C-alpha cells in the first residue's frame, strides 16, 4: 500500500519547523507505524537527504521512548496503544497522515519529531523515590501489602513516561504523569516516610519545569497508552491537601 505523509521537519531547537510532504510506497499492512517511517528514511538516505529524526527503543510498547502526534492524537488513533504498536493495517491505501512532535515548553524540541523529556526526570528526582535504606535485596514478602492495594499501586506504576499526557493536554500539564507516581508511592508502606513532602516537592518541580496546570478535562487519560486513570490526579490533589495541613 501507499500512504501520504505530512511530517514536521525542524533542523534544530531554534529553527522554524514546517510540515513536509512525503509518500511512503510499498508499505505492507503488517508493518508497524515506525517501520513505515524507517522505510521512508531508507529512501531519503538513498537519495542523499536527511532522514526524519524520531525516537524509539523497545518497539513493543513498554519503554515509553516513542511518541508522536498522529493526525492530532498522541500515539495515533488506537486507545491504550503506543505508536510503535500501531500498525499500517489500521490505514487504507492512499490515506494522508499528519505526524508532529509533542509540543510543550517543558519538552524542548531537539530535531524533527524528537523532544527532550528530561523534565519528567526532574519531577521524579524531586520526590518520586523512597529513601528507605533497604540494604541487601530484601525478602519480597517481609512487608505484607494487601493484594488490592498492590494492584492499585501497580495500575499507577505502569506509566512508561512517554509524555502523551502532556502532548494531549491543552495546558501541556504533567499532572497525570506526576500523580501516577504520587499515587503509587502513597499506597505503599515504603512511600509513607516522605508522604508529606513528596507531593509538594513534585508539584513544585512540575510547575518549575514549565508545565501548565490541570483543567480536569481528561484528554490525558484517553490518550495514555497505559490507560492511567484520572483518579490519580484526584489522589494527588488529596495528598496535596494532606501535606498542606501536615505538621512539619
Amino acid at each position: 500500500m501507499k500512504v501520504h505523509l505530512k511530517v514536521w521537519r525542524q533542523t534544530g531547537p531554534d529553527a522554524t519547523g514546517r510540515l513536509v510532504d512525503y509518500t511512503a510506497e510499498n508499505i505492507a499492512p503488517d508493518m508497524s507505524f515506525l517501520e513505515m517511517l524507517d522505510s521512508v528514511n531508507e529512501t531519503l538516505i538513498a537519495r542523499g537527504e536527511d532522514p526524519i529524526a524520531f525516537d524509539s527503543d523497545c518497539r513493543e510498547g513498554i519503554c515509553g521512548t516513542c511518541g508522536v502526534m498522529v493526525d492530532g492524537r498522541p500515539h495515533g488513533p488506537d486507545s491504550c496503544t503506543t505508536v510503535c504498536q500501531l500498525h499500517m493495517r489500521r490505514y487504507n491505501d492512499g490515506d494522508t497522515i499528519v505526524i508532529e512532535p509533542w509540543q510543550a515548553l517543558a519538552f524542548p524540541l531537539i530535531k524533527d519529531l524528537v523532544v527532550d523529556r528530561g523534565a519528567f526526570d526532574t519531577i521524579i528526582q524531586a520526590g518520586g523515590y523512597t529513601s528507605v535504606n533497604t540494604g541487601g535485596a530484601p525478602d519480597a514478602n517481609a512487608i505484607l501489602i494487601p493484594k488490592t492495594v498492590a494492584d492499585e499501586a501497580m495500575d499507577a506504576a505502569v506509566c512508561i513516561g512517554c509524555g502523551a499526557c502532556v502532548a494531549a493536554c491543552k495546558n501541556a500539564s504533567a499532572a497525570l504523569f506526576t500523580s501516577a507516581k504520587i499515587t503509587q508511592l502513597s499506597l505503599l508502606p515504603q512511600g509513607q516516610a516522605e508522604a508529606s513532602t513528596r507531593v509538594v516537592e513534585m508539584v513544585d518541580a512540575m510547575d518549575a519545569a514549565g508545565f501548565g496546570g490541570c483543567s480536569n478535562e481528561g484528554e490525558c487519560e484517553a490518550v495514555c497508552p497505559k490507560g492511567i486513570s484520572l483518579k490519580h490526579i484526584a489522589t494527588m490533589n488529596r495528598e496535596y491537601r494532606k501535606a498542606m495541613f501536615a505538621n512539619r
Partner: protein
Amino acid sequence: MKALKALSTSVGSKYLVALTGLSLVGFLTAHLAGNLLILLGPEKFNGYGHALISNPLVIPAELGLIGLLLLHIFKALRHVLLGRTARPQAYTRKVWAGAPSRKSWGSTTMLVSGIILLVFLVSHIATLKFGADYPSAEPGVRDLYRLVVEVFHSPGIVAFYVVAMVVIGLHLRHGISSAFQSLGLMTPGWTASILAIGLWLSVILAGGFALIPVWVYLFL
C-alpha cells in the same frame, strides 16, 4: 506563609478556583430559590426582597461574594495563562481524544463563558439592584416586583437573559464536577455520581433562572 505558598502552585490555585466556584454555586442555588418567589405574586416577592436588604449582614455578604468572585477570576485567569505559556507552539492538527475524556463544549469555553457571565453580571446588577426604586403599597418596601415585570417585558432583555443562562449552564457543566476533582474528592466510587450531579445541577440552575424572564414575559 506556608499556606500562601501552597495555594499559589498549579494544584493549590485550582483548589481556590474550586472552593470559590462551589461557594458561588451555593449562592446561585439560594438566589434561584429566592427568585422563584416571584411566581407567588408581588407581596411574597417584595417581602423577601425587603427582608434581604434590611438584614444588617447583607453588606458583608455582598462584599464576601465580590471577594469570592475576584479570587475565582484571578486564579482561573492565571491557570489559563499558565496553560497558554506551557505550549508556545500550537499543533497544526489536534483532535479531541474522545471517551473516557470529559472534554466538552463547556470545558473548552470556560474563559469565554466566564467573560460573558461577568458582562452579564454587571448589566444584571445595574438593571435590577440599581434600577428604578418604585415604592410599593407598604411604606418603606421597594416594589421590586413591578421593576422586574417591566424589565422582562422587553423581548431583547428576555433573550439576553436566556442566552446568558445557557452560558452559565455551559460554565457549570464543567465547573461543578471539575471542582470536586480539583479538591481531590472525585474518588472512583463517587465519580459517576459527581459527574451526574454536576450535569443536572447545571441544567436545573440554568433552566430555573431562564424560566423566570420567560414566565414573566408570557404570563405576568
